[in-house]
């Protein structure tokens, strides 16, 4: 039987959040300075990430607003809310540009070294524009398809890695040899903000797709963060057991390098293109979600039509992605040290926390006012 499928199901938010979290986190070197214990940090942050998504969605549910821009206005007043809202739009575009750059760097470094970076970015951008122009209903459906393909590729990858047999689980030992202390700074300033804190982007539109964010949707989102964290953890473990912490630390794209290690029967070799395909799917999801989150804000503030905004804004993002850093190391260093502390922490944790406090206080005042009035 054929179905109409219009509308949004918990499965869709599950897959979209999952792919969003995989996005570029699976591609770049997550927590390289933690060596053997990078996976523990990721696992730990997964649970905090579950709390984060609950908190972000709680913000929407509690205020009965459809998106964070409205919540901002409710919490900080019309002018303050608009200013912070524009900051959020800029933030989403900036992160979107960074993710685009991450992926384009991968293509330039590992697949097409002689093709200029602008050009790979442009091709990627055209794809993103096309996907965004399909409309939210369609691209969410498309991402469900991506989710299946991603899962299939990941399973095939794991099977091949295990079949290859060049795994040395001793690379993981000793677990937390230096104790938990040295791990904490990088865990809280890197892994928690990227990728888990970036879930803030969902507050820009989740309420429009799922008007009341029912229990089922919340459960799907929490499970999704859990699943994504598990996949990230497994990926880091695979990277560690295939070539140890010293090579992983130096690797630009450790998952791609790990997939190169597979050689079965001298025939299945260099399967990195398949892995890059999976990464591409996740990267498109991430870039699209960030772009959509920013566009939602622009649409809400300016009242212009969504379709007319896509091309200028995504092209702008592509342009930013080209100028966002001078070289690869600059890009990585800014991503690991500057962005988390000065951009991620205020916008992912501070503002939502302040909002929550403001809204609580206001509702309490209102209640008190109501009571005094009575």
């Amino acid at each position, binding site marked *: *039987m054929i179905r109409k499928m219009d*509308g949004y199901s918990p499965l869709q938010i599950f897959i979209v959040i999952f792919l969003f979290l995989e996005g570029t986190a699976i591609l770049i070197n997550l927590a390289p300075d933690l060596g053997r214990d990078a996976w523990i940090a990721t696992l730990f942050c997964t649970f905090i990430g579950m709390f984060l998504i609950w908190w972000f969605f709680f913000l929407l549910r509690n205020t009965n607003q459809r998106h964070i821009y409205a919540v901002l206005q409710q919490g900080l007043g019309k002018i303050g809310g608009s200013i912070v809202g524009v900051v959020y739009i800029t933030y989403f575009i900036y992160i979107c540009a960074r993710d685009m750059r991450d992926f384009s760097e991968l293509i330039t470094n590992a697949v*097409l070294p002689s093709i200029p970076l602008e050009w790979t970015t442009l091709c990627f951008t055209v794809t993103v524009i096309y996907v965004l122009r399909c409309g939210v209903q*369609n691209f969410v459906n498309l991402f469900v*398809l991506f989710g299946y393909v991603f899962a299939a590729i990941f399973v095939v990858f794991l099977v091949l890695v295990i079949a290859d047999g060049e795994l040395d689980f001793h690379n993981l030992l000793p677990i937390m040899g230096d104790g938990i202390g040295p791990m904490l700074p990088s865990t809280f300033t890197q892994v928690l903000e990227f990728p888990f804190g970036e879930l803030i982007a969902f507050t820009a539109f989740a309420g429009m797709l799922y008007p009341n964010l029912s229990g089922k949707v919340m459960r799907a989102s929490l499970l999704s963060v859990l699943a994504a964290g598990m996949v990230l953890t497994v990926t880091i473990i695979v990277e560690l057991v295939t070539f140890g912490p010293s090579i992983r630390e130096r690797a630009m794209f450790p998952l791609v390098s790990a997939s190169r290690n597979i050689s079965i029967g*001298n025939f299945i070799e260099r399967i990195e293109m398949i892995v890059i395909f999976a990464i591409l799917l996740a990267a498109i999801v991430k870039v699209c979600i960030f772009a959509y989150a920013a566009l939602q804000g622009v649409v809400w503030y300016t009242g212009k039509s969504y379709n007319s905004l896509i091309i200028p804004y995504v092209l702008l993002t592509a342009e930013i992605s080209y100028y966002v850093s001078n070289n690869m190391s600059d890009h990585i260093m800014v991503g690991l040290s500057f962005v988390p502390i000065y951009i991620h922490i205020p916008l992912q944790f501070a503002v939502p926390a302040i909002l929550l406090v403001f809204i609580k206080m206001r509702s309490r005042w209102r209640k008190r006012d109501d009571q005094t009035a009575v």
Partner: protein
Amino acid sequence: MTKPLYETWDELEETFELTFGKTTDFVKVPVLFNGRKCWILYYSSLVGSSELSSLLMLPFNLHAAKSENVEQFRATALASLNYMYINDWIVIARQLNKNSVCILAEGEQEALTVEIGGYAERSISEPVIQPSIYGPKIAFTESIVTNISILRRVLRTKSLQMESFDTSSDMVTGTVLVYLEDVIEPDLLNEAKRRIQSLEGKKVTTSTHLMKELRDDKKTNFFPTLMVTERQDACIAQLMEGRAVVFIDGSPSGIILPAVFQDFFRSSEDAYLPRPMMIFLRVLRYCAFFIALLLPGIYIGVINYNYEIIPINLAIEIAGLRSNLPFPSVIELLLVEAAFEIMREGSIRMPKIVGNALTVVGALVIGDAAVQAGIVSIVVIIVVAFTGLSSYAFPYYNFAFSVRLLRFIFIGVASMLGIYGVFLGCIILFAYLVSQRSYGYPYLQLNAKRS
């Protein structure tokens, strides 16, 4: 008030010439009906002579003398035939074009038309385009009545409903919308009716024209959103799933609407197979789809951009085969693809007797000679042949066209961006498929449950 059929009896012959022209297959026979003057009119090309004599002339000789008027004669002698009383020449002409005979007696203001039929018609034959081993050996014919009879012989239920529409300008060639009223969704039915109704008077007389008008015409369609079948079992399966079938006079196939992507991988044959085999065949067809679509593109991407993917022994082999060839790989591939497509197109138009011989000879001569002469490498021949074979694996012929077209786009993208381009192309293709709708149904049905 309409004009009467005639003022005086004698001017009728002029009226005939005015209405029907000088066409030679128009027959007017003056007879005597119970002593009155009477005309019998029909097209000899639409009414068979034996049917005419047995159904009309014989009763006429027996009963006409005893009847007081035409109605009495019809009621006693022609009771089993469809009839109509008409007082307008245009309508009479239309009825005559629908295999009827007109009887006009002096003194009556309305002419009687009775449907006789009996012109030569193709009998029901086996399906040719979509043959099947276990399925029923019945294919639709060019006649709507026969086709509906073929359907109703299996679906003997009152819920099998049909509605006729006059889509051609002369109001003769008919279109019939068939559906099961208790299964079909009202939205779909209304949408289908609306679209067919909007065609009335647009001179739609052929199946292809009808299809062109029925599909969503806002966007360029790379993939068919309607399905054409000549098989009874396929039609019945689709009807029972809540879809509608459209027949048009003179076309031996039913148009099923809506059709989604997955339908083109389902053969009516599947119903007669055990489930594991069916799943195997489906998976095989999906593989064939991706091979037919992507293999040449991936070949170009791998050969020209990602040479490291090939295992070393094969890599050396390919490098050896490609050495000293005059063309770049892309041009070479396009040449062989073009040769293959031309050969395929040529062999379809070829008379059947020479056709087979020519395809084999063409393939052998062109392929082998090109390799021997060192113009193309054998790897390309293998790739193109495999791709070509894969595009024959779909049960529905028109689906392969879209794949053949898109393949060239993928070759183009791959020649500029390698496998990365193929990946991006795939994503755009699937985004296109997901956003495509067929009568409001998503073209790509994903098993996302509704909350």
